């Protein structure tokens, strides 16, 4: 029997060997951090510090504004030197707090509570909320919102997403190898908060040692199952993961909670454990700095707010001419326009592609209707039609072809023999019409 998976998808070279072998290293403490107050999906935070104020590591500097929001904490101890608009990784100006590191590494208060499993679900959830935890796979959706399903949605399973299907990235892989126990604890906390009996950890089968490690860590834990999944992009997309593990299909435009599932990323599970046990807010994360254009690919434990240029320097700088620096993976990540932007809670990797590997598409071919994108589309859409309609400005018509069911995984663009920027055209169409 084949490994669990979904229909469609593609097989790009995974390129994980570049960084997979290097253990997580704590990055040099940054001299200065620029912490955006909007690192998550939802309302930006309100700053609650003022210029000149001394802050400690882990101190809250931004308060959530609304239900779908998440607090932001200082990742260093030091002095607030500026509050204002700074460009984020996507090039948008975002209100940010700039803190100068005094190097004292003073924490607000970290208390070890080994008895955390005896806390009530409500208390645990409060800790997750206070720690400012968001989905660390990339989307950065506030975790506490996912943990607060409306009463009528009965949740019966929690999935930990260890697929890490983006080529190059190895952050989740290293966490599963080095912090397997903690990830399992995180899953147990999630199961307790949601009151479910079944927990699954899904890992793509190109990481057999991670599968073995996690199986070992989960051995003897009631209701937790570790599953190897077929290596196929986008296996780590929520809907695809649920289909592969539970055989359930999330209906179009619905959420995982509509089929009784909550999915969390490996890194998020670790953050939840640390929040529940130590009360540690989310102020650092693992970032894979990799690609053929970087001298020494590494997996770094990075403070939120560290500049990308600092990370590149720490990894030995560029090797040869860097053509593109991408935040995230090559499939769904986005190219950075400046290296002076910060690592945020959703930054899973910094990928440097050398100039010779970058294709500049000035002109692309017409759609020849070969249908490869249709076969590749995990959502069962017709990217060919969407791209043609978008190209001609028929945005409303694109909705008939389920425009808004596309989650922009980029598989269509990867397989297109005419090198058409399909996913970009889809994004354009999405921005031109209302769902």
């Amino acid at each position, binding site marked *: 029997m084949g490994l669990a998976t979904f229909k469609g998808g593609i097989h790009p070279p995974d390129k994980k060997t570049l960084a997979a072998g290097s253990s997580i290293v704590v990055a040099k403490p940054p001299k200065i951090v620029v912490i955006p107050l909007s690192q998550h999906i939802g309302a930006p935070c309100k700053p609650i510090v003022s210029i000149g104020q001394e802050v400690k590591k882990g101190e809250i500097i931004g308060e959530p504004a609304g239900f779908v929001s998440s607090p932001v904490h200082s990742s260093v101890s030091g002095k607030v030197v500026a509050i204002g608009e700074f460009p984020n990784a996507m090039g948008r100006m975002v209100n940010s707090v700039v803190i100068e590191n005094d190097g004292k590494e003073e924490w607000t208060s970290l208390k070890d509570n080994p008895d955390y499993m005896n806390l009530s679900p409500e208390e645990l959830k409060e800790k997750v909320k206070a720690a400012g935890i968001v989905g660390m796979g990339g989307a950065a959706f506030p975790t506490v919102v996912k943990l607060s399903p409306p009463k009528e949605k009965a949740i019966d399973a929690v999935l930990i997403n260890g697929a890490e299907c983006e080529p190059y990235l190895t952050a989740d892989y290293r966490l599963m190898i080095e912090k397997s126990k903690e990830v399992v604890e995180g899953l147990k906390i999630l199961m307790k908060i949601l009151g479910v009996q079944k927990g699954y950890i899904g890992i793509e089968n190109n990481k057999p040692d991670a599968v073995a490690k996690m199986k070992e860590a989960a051995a003897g834990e009631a209701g937790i199952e570790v599953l190897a999944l077929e290596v196929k992009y986008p296996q780590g997309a929520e809907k695809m993961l649920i289909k592969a593990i539970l055989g359930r299909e999330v209906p179009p435009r619905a959420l995982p909670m509509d089929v009784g599932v909550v999915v969390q990323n490996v890194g998020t599970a670790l953050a939840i454990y640390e929040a529940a046990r130590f009360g540690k807010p989310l102020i650092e994360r693992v970032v894979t700095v990799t690609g053929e254009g970087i001298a020494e690919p590494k997996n770094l434990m990075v403070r939120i707010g560290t500049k990308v240029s600092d990370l590149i320097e720490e990894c030995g700088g560029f090797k040869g001419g860097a053509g593109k620096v991408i935040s995230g993976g090559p499939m769904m990540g986005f190219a950075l326009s400046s290296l002076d932007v910060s690592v945020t809670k959703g930054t899973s990797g910094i990928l440097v592609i050398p100039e010779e590997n970058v294709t500049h598409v000035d002109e692309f071919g017409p759609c020849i*209707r070969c249908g490869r994108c249709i076969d590749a589309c995990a959502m069962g859409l017709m990217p060919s039609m969407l791209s043609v309609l978008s190209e001609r400005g028929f945005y409303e018509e694109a909705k008939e072809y389920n425009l808004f069911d596309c989650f922009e995984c980029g598989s269509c663009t990867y397989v297109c023999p005419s090198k058409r920027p399909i996913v970009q055209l889809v994004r354009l169409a999405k921005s031109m019409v209302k769902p």
Partner: protein
Amino acid sequence: MWTVSLALLPALLSGVYFFGLKALFVTASCIISSIIFEHLYMKIVDKKTVVSDGSAFLTGLLLGMNMPASLWSFSPFTAHVPIVASFVAVVITKQLFGGLGFNVFNPALIGRAFALISWPKAMTIWSEPSAAFLAMDAKTTATPLGILKEEGVAKLLEVFGDKMSLYTHLLTGNRAGSLGEVSAIAILIGGLFLLSKRYITWHIPVSFLGTVAVMAWVLGGKGALFTGDPIVHLLSGGMMLGAWFMATDYVTSPSVKNGQIIFGVGCGALTMLIRLKGGFPEGVMFAILIMNCFAPLIDRSFKSKVFGAVKQTKAKEIKQ
């Protein structure tokens, strides 16, 4: 495109083997004039020439392979037919409809249809296959389908000896016909190559050939049902070339898999309808062209199934 052209090589070689250099001349004049017309058109409308994408080359190649080798003749003069047909294929059928990717009809087939209707006599002079390479004046004869249509199975068997000999002739290509369509084996090699390279999928060829086989078996006999000979129908005429190389053209066939099956079945049914009931002995070309019209419509009605969509309707049913 270049891979598809490569896959056509065995069939082209078999054509040259059976019909001599004339076959090569006809094909070459189609290819060369297709490329020239494409280039000229692009110059006139001031667009960048994309001859390197192989589209014009492939159109010319397919067009040439769909013509009788006897067209290479100077008395009566018919050597201009491939050139005019190429113009119709590349400029009228493809470029005037918006260029590659936007043409409704298969350019090579329209080119051939145009030639067949404009020069019905020249387009149906079938030389007898002979391995005489340089022979310029071959004896003419009728195609197996022509014999079947006009004189019946008995005559066909009489010409070829017995059933086995008929099948062998059809398989190898030792029979009259368009220069690239005769050898079923050579085409099959190319088709399977494309299949293994995943340039095409099984959906269109299998549904096309399957429909033809079933219809030939059920309706192809004289008098009684279920007495027809599917093998003769599968191996003769433009069947193989059509099913593997013409109907599978990306641009003019549906891109959704379910739709491709409908398309293939439609091609097969129309082919047999024309072969058994129509005025022409062969129907592959018109069948594919007719189904080309429906390709966009089929794509619209057989939209791919959106992930999770069926589940939703099922859930609704359960609720009710």
